[in-house]
């Protein structure tokens, strides 16, 4: 039952998150903007459309979208979104969580290279490099939370009783700040990538999927939305204490993730993309911030 609830939440609510971000950006810019439910229509339309496939490609080209959709869905099952225990929870599950996304990265970048396009290769190179630089930040955060919560699973990180804010508030703030940067880079948002630009040279995620069309592109879009939702839920779950009631937790996560969406929208309205050479500096800063959090709690 909880499994179904969780899956429904991630599958159905994730496109809403994109809508909220876009609406926030539109309002900040004084526009009306697309309707909040626009992403649902986009995905539905793409899934029904036909597609054109490059002559250069092989089976790897289709493997990318398949993995990109499955991985966030599976990763979401490791988060306790409804109640106090995730459907898949065990000591050390965070390793599988992170490596599932590495698998997705491997397959999507390989799919991009499969087209033989210079643009898509460029996007793949950036995606791989930036994700590599973000990885230590994520793990430093895990280490700090392992120390604070005394457990070694995402469930224990996300169901702390609120006492962690009293015991280790400084470390928590650092971890969450660092993870918010990780969320932005992993999901290709401003200031690392601009999902709205139409200049191929400047993009990362959007340029990798230039050749995907129809159902494959729909799956990529949906998968990306779910990935954003999962990362948002991870941060929200760490911030908020768990209540124990399924309904309360579910709505707290949903509300929290939408607030994260608004925050992303505000960031995107308030700043431009960073120059490419600055990106590694920001990511290394994020790692240092999370590393400092570990030092604070190891004392």
């Amino acid at each position, binding site marked *: 039952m909880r499994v179904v609830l969780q899956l429904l939440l991630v599958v159905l609510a994730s496109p809403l998150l994109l809508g909220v971000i876009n609406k926030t950006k539109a309002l900040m810019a004084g526009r009306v903007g697309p309707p909040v439910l626009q992403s649902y229509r986009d995905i539905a339309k793409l899934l029904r459309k*036909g*597609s*054109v*496939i*490059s*002559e250069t*490609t*092989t089976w*790897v080209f289709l*493997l990318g979208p*398949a993995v990109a*959709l*499955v*991985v966030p*869905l*599976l990763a979401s*099952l490791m988060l306790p979104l409804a109640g106090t225990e995730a459907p*898949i929870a065990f*000591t*050390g*599950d*965070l*390793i*599988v969580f*992170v*490596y*599932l996304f*590495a*698998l997705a*990265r*491997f397959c999507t*970048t*390989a799919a991009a*290279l*499969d087209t*033989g*396009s*210079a643009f898509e*290769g460029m996007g*793949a*190179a950036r995606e*791989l*490099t930036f*994700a*590599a*630089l973000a*990885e*230590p930040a994520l*793990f*430093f955060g*895990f*280490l700090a939370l392992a120390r604070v919560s005394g457990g*070694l699973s995402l469930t224990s990180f996300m169901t702390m009783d609120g006492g962690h804010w009293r015991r280790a508030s400084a470390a928590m703030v650092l971890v969450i700040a660092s993870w918010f940067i990780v969320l932005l880079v992993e999901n290709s948002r401003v200031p690392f990538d601009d999902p709205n630009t139409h200049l191929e040279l400047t993009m990362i995620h959007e340029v990798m999927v*230039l*050749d995907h069309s*129809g159902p494959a592109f729909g*799956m990529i879009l949906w998968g990306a939305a779910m990935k954003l939702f999962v990362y948002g839920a991870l941060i929200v779950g760490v911030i908020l204490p768990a209540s124990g009631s399924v309904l309360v937790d579910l709505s707290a996560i949903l509300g929290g993730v939408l607030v994260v969406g608004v925050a992303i929208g505000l960031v995107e309205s308030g700043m431009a993309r960073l120059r490419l050479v600055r990106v590694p500096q920001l990511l290394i800063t994020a790692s240092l911030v999370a*590393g400092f959090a*570990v030092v604070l709690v*190891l004392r």
Partner: protein
Amino acid sequence: MLALLVAGLSLIALSGLASFGLRGRRGEIAGATAVVAGSLCGLVTVIDTLRTGIVLTANLPWQLPLAEVIVRVDPLAAAFLAPIFVLGAVASVYGLAYWPSSEQRSATRVRVFIGILLAGMSTVVIAAHAILFLVAWELMALSSFFLIAADDSEREVRDAAWIYLVATHIGTLALFAMFVVMRDVNGTFALGPLAGAGALVPTLVFLLALIGFGFKAGIVPLHFWLPGAHANAPSHVSAILSGAMLKVGVYGLVRILTYLDDPPLWWGGLLVALGLTGALTAITLAIGESDMKRALAYSSVENVGIIVAAIGVATFGRAVQLPALTAIGFAAAILHVWNHSVFKGLLFLGAGSVLHATGTRRIDSMGGLLRRMPVTGAAFFAGACAAAALPGANAFVSEALLYYGFFLTAPRGSMLAFGAAILAFVGAIAVVCFVRLTGTIFLGNSRSEQAAHAHESPLLMRIPMIVLAAAVIVTGLLPTVIVQPLQAVAPGALESIAPFLGAIALPVQLAALGTVALFVVLLAATRRSPRAVTWDCGYAAPTARMQYTGRSLGEWISERLTPDFLRPRVEAPMPFDMFPPPAKLSVSTREPFSEELYRPLVKRWARRAMRFRWVQQGRLPHYLLYILVTLVAGIGWAVVFPLLRAWR
């Protein structure tokens, strides 16, 4: 069981002789059959030892002073025998098609020395006496030298083989010293726990073992010989060298550590630090390589680093008396030894097929090979997933165990926990490295004529790759199958790691299942989709040369974010003139440690050593005199010393 093992080893050692009895193809097939049969005999013993945990020992007299032939097969030895036999068998079959007498002048020599190398490595692992150990060690070192130098008409190959020979013997010197120190304490050359030796002697033995075995295993910074040697050997030999011979070095280190009781805390810390910094250095260098086999060799150095870090975690666990941590670290090390053997063997065999088909090792003149070589490409893809430690492939299981070990130290507040973040960084860069290799070699368009006309390898080369790829995926999807054999090697593994391995299996299997299902759906949905050229933003005439290259894919990591020391040398003089000359670009990757650290050092010492040049004159009588003097001095030492001692 021991008799079966010895029979198998003899069969393998003598397998090369078949070529002298039977001419031509039949001799080759007989030799390969002998290696496969011998390996199967050996594997039966290995499996039996791992299943029952029974230690087999044999003690035979030997006509050498101070020497005995003592062999012992315990679970630890069996664990390291397994990759030798598996890769030996697989590589011999592959060699039938890859390095046949009809095409290669050195084919007979290669087969003879592969047999000797495999037998030598196995003997090192089962030797329980220092003299036997060193004899087998030297057999292994020399036979692999001849294998690396197989293609000896090339200067690069000869240089690589010489550097290897020098490096391995420096390591052997350290081992001589180590065994002498151990004999001094134990009173015998038979190998066994170091008894009551104070604090200083175990540390000395540990450091000597680290240096001696570190050369063989390729621990950074002692790895400098490795990329050249592994890249220039015939590919099936590279598979054995990377998959099995490096592990013999690891075995030595592990074995000596089991002889040393109560290791201090800093040993574990040193091993973890050496392993992780080495892994990070090596994987960064791998990204700068445009030679696919050198890149794979650097990835081997990275994986040895990970194994050493796991040994460090186990040592740390022993030092702080946490049996669970010891078992996890040890199990991670052994499991990664197995996994790396399988996937790196697979990758080298795949690289061999590519080399066979295109005649080049430069990845930037390849591309699009997956369409021409579907089996090799798919197998290489599986191997690359393993090398990047992705879920669903075998190496993920062992790396996850190592993470688990690091995380277990976090709630205790140990600094060792930082290892997890560094390992994550290494893992993420490994993803870059292997996407780069797979993408540049197998995906996209062909960048050269040879790549455009590449052909799939013959069946005898495909079968070994399929076997290894299947092993990669089965272990990755059903990690619990290896708990039982691990239990024999790492006691306590059952309680501490079986639940974890069982738990990670579920999400991995679900991911595989879901991906396959969606993939099939997508395949069906796009079956009748129209085909068109790749979208290049309206540009009308895209060519293969406009693709992203391997160098540009790795540029961020290997040329921007690394310290200058590790970067490839790029020479691109700007065409800057009224009538600009043609632009040029040359990127040269070299082994930074040997070029910038050791070469200047050796040069300086070589100048000083010139003063002793007069000893070497090339006149036979002088050398005979040297031999006589050495002999007399040796006899004098052996006879006179005991007399003097008795008289006093």
